[in-house]
């Protein structure tokens, strides 16, 4: 793989468990990565993307992501995002970003109360952004999911807003692209972005879909999306 210039900061909280998979994924694609411990008050200065990876930060106590969002590093992440920096939250990272108010809505316990872990089809809703620009609207991707609190909730007013602004990124769907109920999410939403389209969050794990032998390579275009 040819060396690329993009540098990715991968955050690490107590209870994070996808930080090494995430590092492996970006490095496999040729990027430079740096792990950033949650107590750091600053992010590295030479980065192009911050990834808040999956796991169970602080044991999911109180609510998933509710305690991690007050970690010192999150102040730096908020400043970075407000300054236009790109941030991607995967699974627990998505929960942390909604708790931090960097993304709209909230993630509740799955409607069937189960931890759901399987490959899942996702329909690309809006590819007009830094994350999904290498995908097509309406395209069906196959990415693993693994979560108990992935039931995306947003009130009617908020929903209209994110729908109109093209902030809905992905929906759970069948192999034809028809939305399906997986965890009870409002209109089967699997991922959203903020209004200015520089903060992205999704419950599925693109970093686990890079190798055909593991069932899918659809995650590659998501992670490479930031390299524009």
């Amino acid at each position, binding site marked *: 793989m040819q060396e690329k210039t993009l540098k990715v900061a991968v955050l690490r909280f107590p209870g994070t468990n996808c930080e090494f998979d995430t590092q492996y994924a970006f490095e496999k694609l040729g990027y430079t990565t740096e792990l950033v411990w949650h107590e750091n008050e600053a992010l590295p200065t030479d980065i192009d993307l911050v990834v808040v990876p999956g796991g169970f930060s602080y044991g999911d106590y*109180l609510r998933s992501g509710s*305690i991690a969002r*007050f970690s010192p590093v999150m102040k730096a992440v908020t400043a970075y995002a407000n300054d236009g920096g790109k941030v991607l939250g995967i699974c627990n990272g998505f929960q942390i970003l909604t708790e931090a108010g960097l993304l709209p*809505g*909230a993630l*509740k*316990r799955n*409607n*069937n109360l189960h931890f759901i872990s399987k490959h899942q089809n996702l329909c690309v809703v809006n590819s007009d952004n830094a994350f999904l620009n290498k995908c097509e609207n309406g395209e069906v991707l196959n990415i693993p999911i693994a979560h108990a609190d992935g039931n995306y*909730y947003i009130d009617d007013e908020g929903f209209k807003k994110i729908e109109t602004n093209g902030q809905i990124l992905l929906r759970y769907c069948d192999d034809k692209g028809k939305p399906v109920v997986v965890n009870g999410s409002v209109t089967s939403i699997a991922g959203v972005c903020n209004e200015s389209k520089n903060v992205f969050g999704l419950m599925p794990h693109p970093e686990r879909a890079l190798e055909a032998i593991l069932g899918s390579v659809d995650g590659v275009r998501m992670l490479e999306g930031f390299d524009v």
Partner: protein
Amino acid sequence: MTAVVNVFLKDGVLDPQGKAAHHALDSLGFSSVGDVRIGKQIIIKLDTTDKAKAETEVKEMCETLLANTVIEDYTIEIN
């Protein structure tokens, strides 16, 4: 003083745990059950005797950390 905080999902936000408990109660023959909501109770010991101050402070705790007001409501009782 002690603050008792109750946190529940808002009305209109589906409570899957409440629904599961409701079904279980139904199947056990408790036919009079109309609705079940499951929340959490947080008990906070406070180093103050000023009730008004305690209330203000606990409300701030709820808004900041203890409840996610996108999906949850809370009540505060100071004893």
